[in-house]
């Protein structure tokens, strides 16, 4: 649904985005992560047709985004910029009505009422935008983005400034839009949100450093530690494990678990399990320790690449 091919953007001598290629399918949410100045906003603006790439192409629904196709394609795109950009002197309803007119929507008031209800904003319809809190303004901006029911959503930090309850409502809303078939690209600094919400995570630092499912990204940065939780005191089984992994391997007892550093998990795990069972250990759980998404992200941006992933 969204296809970026070799997108690059330079501002004078500075390269903001360098040869980025990725796609977002229908009914998919991709989270765009990256440090400040990584090119996330520039990428979103290019996909929304607000600025043109220095090189590369953008296609929405298979149609290339150009000056000639821009007007028609923007009908299918909902873009939420970083700043809400509401008109201060107008009420919430008046702001939304203006945008309904710009998108040529019929039954504007009906749509506005339904959209406000979805985000629990109905009681604020007659409030002037200047009187809203930061979080409320962000919610109204999100309603504005969704009003014309776009097939593509490009959201620049949609939960910025929102409290946990509002963040959850936004997440539920985006999940509903995904079920409805939207292709959604979300730029965020919130790794927890990216993990909960996104089907895939793209890490950007001028160029696309990595793109994968959150669980797969985490698995790629392994710690090499196996955690075996036993029923009862694990200390008697230390020797059993050491015989298999060697005298120099790191083994630790942590409460009811044995934590073993294994060099070759695929080979050594079955043998460890078999040895412990033979030694009459009650194995409650066995798992490979995976890195937190934060660790993966920091590793990627510091190395500017997959490195040893």
């Amino acid at each position, binding site marked *: 649904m969204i296809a970026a091919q070799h997108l690059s953007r330079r*501002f004078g001598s500075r390269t903001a985005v360098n040869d980025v290629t990725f796609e977002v399918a229908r009914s998919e949410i991709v989270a765009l992560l990256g440090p400040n100045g990584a090119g996330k906003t520039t990428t979103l*603006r290019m996909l*929304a*047709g*607000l*600025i*043109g790439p220095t090189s590369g192409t953008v296609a929405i629904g298979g149609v290339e985004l150009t000056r000639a196709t821009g*007007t*028609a394609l*923007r*009908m299918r*795109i909902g*873009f*939420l*910029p970083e*700043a*809400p*950009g*509401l*008109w*201060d*002197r*107008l009420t919430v309803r*008046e702001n939304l009505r*203006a*945008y*309904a*007119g*710009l*998108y*040529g929507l019929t039954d504007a008031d009906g749509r506005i009422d339904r959209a406000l209800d979805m985000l629990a904003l109905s009681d604020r319809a007659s409030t002037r935008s200047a009187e809203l809190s930061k979080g409320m303004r962000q919610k109204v*901006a999100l309603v*504005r*983005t969704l009003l014309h029911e776009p097939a593509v959503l490009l959201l620049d930090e949609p939960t910025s400034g929102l409290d946990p309850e509002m963040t959850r409502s936004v997440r539920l809303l985006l999940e509903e839009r995904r079920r409805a078939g939207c292709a959604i690209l979300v730029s965020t600094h919130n790794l927890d949100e990216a993990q909960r919400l996104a089907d895939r995570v793209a890490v950007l630092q001028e160029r696309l450093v990595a793109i994968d499912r959150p669980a797969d990204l985490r698995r790629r940065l392994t710690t090499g530690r196996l955690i075996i939780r036993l029923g009862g005191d694990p200390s008697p089984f230390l020797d059993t494990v050491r015989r298999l992994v060697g005298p120099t391997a790191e083994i630790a007892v942590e409460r009811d678990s044995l934590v073993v550093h294994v060099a070759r998990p695929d080979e050594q795990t079955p043998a460890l399990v078999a040895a412990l069972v033979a030694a009459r250990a009650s194995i409650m759980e066995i798992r490979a320790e995976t890195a937190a998404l934060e660790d993966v992200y920091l590793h990627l941006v510091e190395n500017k690449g997959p490195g040893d992933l």
Partner: protein
Amino acid sequence: MNGNRVRALVKKELLDLARNPTALMPVAILTAFSLLLPFLVAVAIPALTDRGLDRDAGLSRISAAANPPAALSDAARVQFFLFQQFLVLFLLTPITGALVLAAHAVVGEKQARALEPLLATPITTLELLAAKLFGAAIPTFAISFVGLALYAGGILTFGLPGVALAMLNARSLLLVLWVSPAAGLVSLQSAVLISSRVNDPRTAQQWGVLIVAPLSGLVIAHLMGALSFSAPVLVLIGVGLFAVWLVLLLFSVALFDRETILTRWR
């Protein structure tokens, strides 16, 4: 061009202005000044000093040379001449509107961070600029026409016999209905163009002096009697101004750089 999108944005502009009526104060004040000054000079002062307008030899000579209707008395002829000359003051109303309203048209949206979501909609550059122009022109011209209606009513009420009827001539009508709207559109369009190229409203207003200076110069020259335009000349001036406006509109569209507006603040 999609008329619905233009209408939606014009409605928003007018609503915004209705919530901020003080923005129109300079336009209203200037219109009031344009309205009061002629009556002060042509009606109040002669009445208070008990000295008829025809007692001023210079004014009598100039007013006679301006080809007034023969049926007017000497004093009425001078009064008619003064009212006709002061009519050009109403050209200043749209010029002021350009500075106080149109100068904020695009750069005001940028400062409020409202331009980016607006440009992300299907609205084209031509539609955006047309809406910004009409959003400033409608209230400006409305104030101007109210002022003119009051001017006409005042002449009818306080003017000497025959003056009101004499004012209904080709020159007056061309000035009010042809040249003034055309000059207004040129001023407003220039201000919108400047607004789309600068980074703050103050800079836009400072550049707006370039619009004010030549048009104000023409107004003053006309008031002083240094310039006098016949009806055919006014027709041509109007045609020229409308042509300039169309060129400015196309120029505005060509020069409107979405990328620079969104990404640069210098």
